[in-house]
């Protein structure tokens, strides 16, 4: 069955082709055709992915590899345009193509009224293509191509409604901040190249172990630099500030790029380069610590947001924090598992939010929503499923299983610690509070805005499919005391080593599971108390000055925006504007001025008075004679 693997290149090529067609002819063809090209290309990609996946599962090769062409070759540096498909990539392309396809279908309705319909689909296709290149690249340079490509698409789509200056600003912010991370990553690539003479991922993975001991300085530095890239892309501390602003884009974009796929590229990078990270325990610790801190900070920030999409954005940051937490303790497959589940439920939540926003005439403020439970039942139920999954509602939701695994491994894993576990648990508590705060404010209470647009099939079908996945997705990986299904980690085990569990810890697992369940339910109850049954509790908090100050602080995302603004942006802009005229040019202008001054002096001697000229001649004669006498 060689034939299927040969189709590998088609998976990213089809969306690219779609994008190219839409760019070239998008303005001249009908909307129907645009839809067909836009969704069709991703759909076919998804179909090929499915076929490949079936074949992969049935034949179990180590990986598929296909070199499309040799990119370039200089002095022994010869990266190729070549694709490498193993289990890890498989999970990612599966999520990208399928969730991407669903979101494309959803967009046909969401964007139906927009004038730039074809531009939207062109960018979306370009994004899917770049993302696929990112996860399928066999070398880091090609990965970097995809990495920057998704950044570009993210920029284009955040600034999709470009006439609003704020959107353009948010788009630029996203691109520049992620570029900061990319720069660190690029330096990491330079160092990797210097060390290995290649950027081929498999080669690096196999050779790194031979080249470096655990804790080798080079490995640590490289790991930190790669982490810089990952942090930028995945909206983790300290480069997380762009993600909430990125919600300026159309909601399907937020769902696809800023929740399901692109922002998890950092997770992919770390998982992909896990060999390097394993050689650098310090960097691993940093990953875990960043994850823990980020998930808490973003969780608390989410508690205070009023904009529906911003709540989801902060929750995305927070959930990626969980993935980092998992990666940081070496629980690779748990991190990737949470990525997949998160992609399902977060895409679902965003798409529901989009349906609500569309219905309420582009109103995003939750305080102006309410009572949608009855007027939009499908959206309500699917949103509830997504929320349950996000809040890790015990037993039935997929999120419970993925998050529980991460929390469990914080304690049970060899590299875990109580602090990380505590952070994760607190985060889970906060998560369920803000999730159900969202549910209660939006869907309960009285209706505040008239529902305009009722979703049709193009919206409902993706919601239902994602809802089903959010419920059932968790059952492919169950705790060993609770069915012990390990389909997912088995699938990944050739690529990602299993985390080593502290022996003899197993008997406590059920206690921790109960604790997690209690925390989740407790959060929901508190949300119920504050936002549904006893609103006076909330009012009492609003009266307290301290609480409001904390509220404002959290609302502004812990003041990071302001910090960066005063620390970096303003000085840079100031520096640039101060020097707009270019001081160095001033030097040359000054030189010219001096010459001009001499010119003026000499020109003044040209007085037009004949007698002065004669006097000049005399003085000259005296000088010449004097010189000739004394010489």
């Amino acid at each position: 069955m060689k034939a299927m693997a040969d189709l590998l290149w088609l998976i990213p090529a089809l969306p690219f082709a779609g994008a190219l067609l839409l760019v070239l002819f998008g303005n001249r063809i009908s909307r129907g055709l645009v839809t067909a090209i836009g969704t069709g290309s991703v759909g076919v990609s998804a179909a090929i992915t499915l076929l490949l996946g079936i074949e992969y599962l049935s034949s179990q090769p180590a990986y598929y590899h296909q070199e499309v062409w040799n990119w370039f070759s200089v002095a022994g540096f010869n990266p190729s345009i070549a694709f490498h498909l193993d289990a890890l990539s498989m999970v990612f392309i599966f999520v990208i193509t399928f969730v991407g396809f669903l979101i494309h279908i959803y967009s046909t309705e969401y964007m139906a009224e927009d004038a730039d319909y074809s531009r939207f689909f062109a960018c979306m296709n370009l994004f899917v293509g770049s993302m696929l290149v990112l996860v399928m690249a066999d070398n880091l340079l090609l990965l970097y191509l995809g990495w920057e490509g998704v950044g570009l698409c993210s920029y284009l789509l955040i600034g999709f409604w470009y006439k609003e200056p704020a959107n353009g600003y948010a788009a630029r912010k996203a691109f520049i901040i992620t570029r900061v991370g990319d720069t660190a990553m690029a330096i990491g690539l330079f160092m990797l190249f210097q060390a290995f003479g290649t950027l081929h991922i498999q080669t690096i993975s196999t050779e790194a172990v031979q080249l470096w001991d655990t804790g080798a300085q080079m490995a640590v530095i490289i790991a930190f630099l790669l982490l810089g890239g990952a942090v930028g892309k995945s909206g983790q501390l300290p480069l997380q500030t762009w993600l909430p602003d990125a919600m300026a884009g159309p909601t399907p974009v937020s769902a696809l790029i800023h929740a399901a796929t692109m922002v998890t590229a950092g997770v992919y990078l770390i998982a992909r380069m896990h060999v390097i990270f394993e050689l650098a325990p310090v960097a691993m610790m940093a990953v875990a610590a960043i994850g823990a801190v980020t998930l808490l900070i973003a969780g608390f920030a989410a508690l205070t947001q009023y904009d529906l999409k911003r709540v989801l954005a902060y929750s995305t940051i927070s959930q990626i924090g969980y993935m980092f937490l998992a990666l940081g303790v070496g629980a690779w497959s748990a991190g990737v598992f949470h990525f997949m589940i998160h992609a399902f439920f977060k895409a679902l939540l965003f798409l529901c939010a989009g349906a609500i926003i569309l219905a309420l005439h582009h109103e995003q403020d939750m305080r102006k929503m309410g009572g949608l439970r009855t007027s939009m039942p499908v959206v309500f139920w699917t949103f509830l499923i997504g929320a349950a999954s996000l809040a890790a509602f015990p037993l039935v939701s997929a999120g419970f299983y993925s998050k529980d695994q991460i929390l469990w491994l914080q304690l049970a894993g060899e590299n875990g610690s109580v602090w990380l576990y505590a952070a994760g648990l607190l985060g889970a508590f906060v998560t369920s509070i803000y999730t159900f705060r969202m549910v209660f404010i939006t869907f309960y209470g009285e209706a505040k805005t008239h529902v305009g647009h009722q979703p049709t099939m193009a919206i409902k079908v993706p919601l239902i499919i994602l809802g089903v996945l959010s419920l059932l997705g968790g059952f492919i990986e169950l705790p060993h005391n609770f069915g012990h299904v390990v389909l997912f980690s088995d699938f990944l085990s050739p690529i990602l080593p299993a985390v080593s569990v502290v022996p003899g810890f197993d008997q406590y697992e059920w206690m921790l599971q109960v604790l997690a369940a209690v925390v989740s339910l407790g959060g929901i109850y508190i949300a119920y108390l504050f936002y549904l049954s006893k609103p006076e509790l909330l009012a009492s908090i609003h009266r307290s000055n301290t609480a409001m100050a904390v509220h404002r602080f959290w609302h502004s995302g812990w003041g990071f925006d302001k910090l960066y603004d005063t620390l970096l942006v303003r000085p840079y802009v100031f520096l640039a504007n101060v020097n707009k005229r270019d001081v160095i040019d001033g030097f040359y202008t000054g030189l010219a001025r001096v010459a001009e001054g001499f010119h003026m002096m000499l020109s003044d001697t040209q007085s037009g008075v004949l007698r002065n000229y004669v006097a000049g001649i005399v003085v000259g004669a005296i000088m010449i004679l004097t010189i000739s006498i004394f010489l």
Partner: protein
Amino acid sequence: MNAVSMEAGLLLAGILFLLGMISVMIRRNIIFMLISVEIMLNAAGLAFIVAGSRWVQPDGQIMFIFILTMAAAEVSVGLALILQIYHQLKTLNSDTANFMKG
């Protein structure tokens, strides 16, 4: 005939030349300046004559003739210019004619 020292002759030429030059520098009247230039030319001619006489050669005198010719031509053109200037500026002050000021 007694010898006249060449130094004395050249000194005389120098004194006359410098007198002419002082005059060019101090007079504003353009006719005076022309006269002074004549004095200077004459002094230069004198120097040639002195040198010619010292070496007993005709060349010095020939140079004087050329100077004379030139002085004649110069004075005629110069006077014509002075007339023009006077007609246009209504003055003989050479400082007024400073349009070439840089």
